[in-house]
């Protein structure tokens, strides 16, 4: 039957209900909340590490004329693995969580990354920003050995199938010998 504890608690609740005024006022999640993941188009190099590591398979790579990376929130578990592995810190989990949609395909975000064209055959073969980023990373190493950055750049703008052609192959061999 009626007990005192519940009565005092009830009366306290009667005077001041605990309900949030949510839809009329926003209810921000605490700091560090893992909400909707978003790309930073300036930072993303299109390496696809996120798509490979995603435990849910929510991130898909689609290589056509350009590489498009898509996060489908309908499959995302908001675990933040993509954020952990992204070498460029280009994926960030925002604090947004109101994702309800009428069309499930609309719950997604895309990013398009340009491909580099092969300097030899013109085929699009590798994400251009990633290539650029790898040159940047190589730069101090090359400088240490007094090798010009440009040489590598020319070599690496050749697609894998062209690299197997004899003249390209010998060029690479020369460079690698030079490199030690």
């Amino acid at each position, binding site marked *: *039957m009626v007990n005192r504890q519940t009565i005092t608690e009830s009366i306290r609740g009667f005077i001041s209900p*605990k309900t949030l005024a949510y839809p009329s006022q926003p209810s921000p999640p605490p700091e560090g909340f893992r909400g909707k993941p978003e790309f930073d188009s300036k930072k993303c190099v299109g390496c696809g590490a996120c798509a490979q590591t995603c435990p849910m398979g929510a991130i898909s790579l689609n290589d056509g004329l350009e590489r498009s990376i898509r996060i489908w929130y309908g499959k995302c578990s908001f675990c933040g693995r993509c954020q952990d592995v992204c070498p460029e810190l280009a994926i960030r989990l925002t604090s947004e969580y109101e994702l309800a949609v009428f069309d499930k395909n609309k719950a997604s975000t895309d990013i398009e990354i340009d491909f580099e064209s092969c300097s030899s055959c013109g085929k699009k073969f590798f994400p251009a920003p990633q290539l650029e980023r790898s040159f940047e990373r190589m730069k101090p190493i090359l400088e240490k050995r007094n090798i010009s950055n440009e040489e590598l750049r020319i070599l690496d703008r050749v697609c894998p199938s062209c690299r197997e052609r004899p003249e390209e192959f010998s060029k690479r061999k020369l460079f690698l010998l030079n490199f030690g």
Partner: protein
Amino acid sequence: MPVALPIGPYHPALKENTYFRLEVEGERIVNADLKIGYNHRGIEWLAARRTYHQDIFLCERVCGICSNAHSTCFCQTVEDLAHIEVPDRARYLRVIVAELERLHSHFLWFGVAMHVIGFDTAFMHMWKDRETIMRMIESITGKRVNHGFNTIGGTRRDFTPSILKSIEDGVNTIEKAADRIRNTVTRDSLVRKRALDIGYLSGEDAKRISVVGPTARASAINVDIRRDDPYAAYSELDWNVIVRDGGDALARVVVRLLEIYESIRVIRQALKSLPSGPISSDISQLEFPVSEACDRVEAPRGELFYFMKSNGTNIPERVKIRTPSYMNNAALTTMLIGNSTADAPLIIASIDPCYSCTDRVAIVSAKNGEITYATMEELSRKKTH
């Protein structure tokens, strides 16, 4: 003549789908049968097809309520397998989050139990207090449920000073809330009347069926993995295992109630002696030898067991999971017989069953599309046009 009263697969008392077939004479249950398997999702099969790092998040989704226990157990098994040392700080952080999860699970359970006996006001008050814990967990791990806190070799997040402060305050709030639960549960004569002497499980039966966790401890079986097979930082902390010999639903209520206080004690101690240092060891050179490992964790519902076999690749050969509810569910048929149908939901709730855990282990012929339990009387559903 006994009449078959079905409970489930969709039933308001069960937040998940399972199916009880109760044979009743009037209001008395003379026979009970439990069909599980509705939640079977093939997790062990999936786990053998993903990398270890991806499996952490898969195993978390075995059960949304004790997700941290699952990921802890998985990570510990992998750490055993690959001989990875976990930093001290990470061990303490794991303890704190595990105990917070136990608190939230027990609060949730108290609310559900109150709801089942029709005490909706108490249910609402308890879930209101539970939101304090949820907020805390959310600010620590970044998510309310399926926290994604553990990783192989440690934890993914560290406590900032502001979080430490908020946990200290939060634990004080929870202790007050726990006092309120104690007063409600122990002083309300109607609650006592509903829970006393129903769903009795004797110590022998408990041993025979091998129930685990609070269900076992309420039947005078002194078992707790945190003490018997210490993991994380439990061996360095001082706390008690709560054992009661009532064996009925009230004893299970009391065991969980007192466990709330023990959890609070553990959290306070762990906060006080929280070592500094890194939160995860370097696993960039991670290699998996061909071997086997198993590990146990005391989830809020009892002993959780993981077995793992590696084949040298970054994908496990076999992951075997045995969840506490799987053991406890077997005891239900014993508990139900002889009670009134009105008590059935409370008895079912009293073991805190978790079918999403259980059904991962159930042997279901879902593979060839054959649904084993199709012959039951399907309530109103068959009767529709």
